[in-house]
């Protein structure tokens, strides 16, 4: 059976990729090499980079599943039904009174063409993004969902990346490095996972995000655990988080220059002699026991 573990945080920059990359490294070296990482932070993917970057690419698939409306002005009779129907702010009126498509808001849903009285609206397919599958310098397999800049449909791209990862034969572990937040790509990362790891820092801003994400986990009925990262930046706040969240807090990690250095050198902490390694090992053992 495949075990899927998602790593997420309500707020960005609290250590998701740090935890995901090191957990994947740990599993691949000490538990079972039949594991893969999925970078689901499609707007800013970094998981492969944290593991030394790709050194071999097995496949690179462009995904073309987004549609955008296109208006044929030879046919358009300026009835503006399209403008009045679109629910996504995706049609504007220009200075000549013509409807224009705001591509970044267009869902490609087709509502505008349904109400067009002159058959002037067509659709073109645009690239959603790319799903890259390869091996990193430190030896881990990683599937990256890489959204086109200014793109939409992140959730769908994440779904495709997860499916790609799970097609590896005899696979045992999938580690998903989620996007920040609680929206579509995050839900797409968490849904169907066996466990959600939430990274939180001892700030109100990060803790708010953590609590929102716990609500999402509860709605989706996914088991979750919380790691307090840089806990020593505000021990009082860390204690409060631990008290409020209770047994679901699975570990604390101190602030460390070693982590900054490991990122700069693109070497996971688990591959170094840092003191932090011990803290992480204990947390990872706990996670894998669940």
């Amino acid at each position: 059976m495949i075990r899927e573990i998602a790593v997420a945080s309500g707020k960005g920059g609290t250590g998701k990729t740090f935890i995901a990359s090191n957990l994947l490294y740990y599993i691949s070296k000490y538990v079972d090499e039949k594991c893969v990482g999925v970078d689901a932070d499609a707007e800013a993917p970094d998981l492969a980079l944290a593991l030394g970057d790709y050194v071999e690419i097995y496949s690179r698939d462009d995904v073309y599943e987004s549609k955008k409306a296109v208006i044929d002005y030879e046919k358009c009779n300026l009835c503006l039904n399209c403008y009045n129907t679109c629910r996504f702010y995706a049609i504007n009126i220009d200075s000549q009174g013509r409807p224009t498509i705001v591509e970044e808001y267009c869902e490609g849903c087709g509502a505008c063409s349904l109400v067009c009285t002159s058959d002037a609206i067509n659709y073109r397919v645009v690239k959603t993004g790319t799903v890259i599958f390869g091996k990193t310098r430190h030896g881990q397999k990683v599937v990256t969902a890489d959204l086109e800049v200014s793109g939409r449909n992140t959730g769908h791209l994440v779904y495709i990346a997860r499916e790609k990862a799970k097609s590896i034969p005899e696979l045992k572990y999938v580690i998903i490095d989620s996007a920040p937040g609680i929206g579509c790509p995050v839900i797409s990362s968490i849904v169907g996972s066996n466990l959600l790891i939430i990274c939180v820092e001892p700030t109100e801003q990060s803790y708010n995000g953590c609590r929102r994400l716990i609500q999402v986990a509860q709605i989706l009925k996914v088991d979750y655990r919380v790691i307090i990262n840089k806990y020593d930046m505000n021990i009082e706040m860390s204690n409060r988080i631990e008290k409020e969240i209770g047994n679901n807090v699975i570990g604390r990690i101190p602030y460390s220059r070693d982590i900054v250095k490991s990122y700069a050198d693109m070497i996971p902490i688990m591959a170094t002699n840092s003191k932090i390694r011990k803290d992480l090992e204990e947390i990872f053992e706990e996670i894998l026991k669940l």
Partner: protein
Amino acid sequence: MIIAVAGGKGGVGKTIIASNIAILLSRIGKTMIIDADVDNPCIENTLKVLNIQVLKIEEVYRFKPRIIIEKCDLCKKCVDTCPENAIVIIPQMRNIFIIDTLCAGCGCCKLVCDREAIVEDREIEGTVKICKAGTIDLIVGELKPGEKRSYIVMTKIIEGYRDLYRNYDYTIIDAPPGTGAGVFSILKNSDIHIIVTEATRLGFSDFMKIMKLKISKNLNQKTIVVINKYDLNVEISREIENEARKITNYVVRIPYSDNIARSYMIGKPIVLEDLPEKKYFEDITKIILS
């Protein structure tokens, strides 16, 4: 003047920059901040010391179709039209239903139904708060946990309140992390871009993705690149600066600072205190006004 604060990576300091420059700009003109990071809005915590007053809370809705089974003749038009395949029909049981989690709220089903069997309900996707923080006005968007359609709340605050924020001398939009459609629409609709990154490999990689967005979409607005915590890795900082110089002359470097970290934690922006770090935010403000 509309000033967008963006950065591909999460947690690089966007909200810190937005709140500090807002305070400085509010001393010379009417200023508003829009917190568009609807998955995890942080501006209220970051400006806590200003005793934020909430003036109004508005709900943001999505169109939610409801089928009146008595009127439905199971013609299947809605099923065939729905772009998300969210409508399921079981002819044997004379049953038809909508899978709410798939429904995007486009309204196509209602448009094609000729029996008026689909009526318009609405679903709360999130809220928009109008607040006051001293002399600064705030618009804060917040996605409801469990809902995935961040873009509905975000487009609402960017497009739905345009008439309101146009009246300000300075409107600062605190963008969500990432490089997708939402960030693009914010950058496109602003006069000045502040691109924030940090001196790590991951920060650099995400910075390059947002640069790609700006270049490929011809977003040629005046740009200020802020390298936060540049002293984490001076070499990477220099690489970021070299890339930044290709599109702008304005690069501001901020060192790692315990004072800034503390000011963020307690919700008292650093420019309100007489500390040397306030100079960096004064520099950014000077460039905005130059």
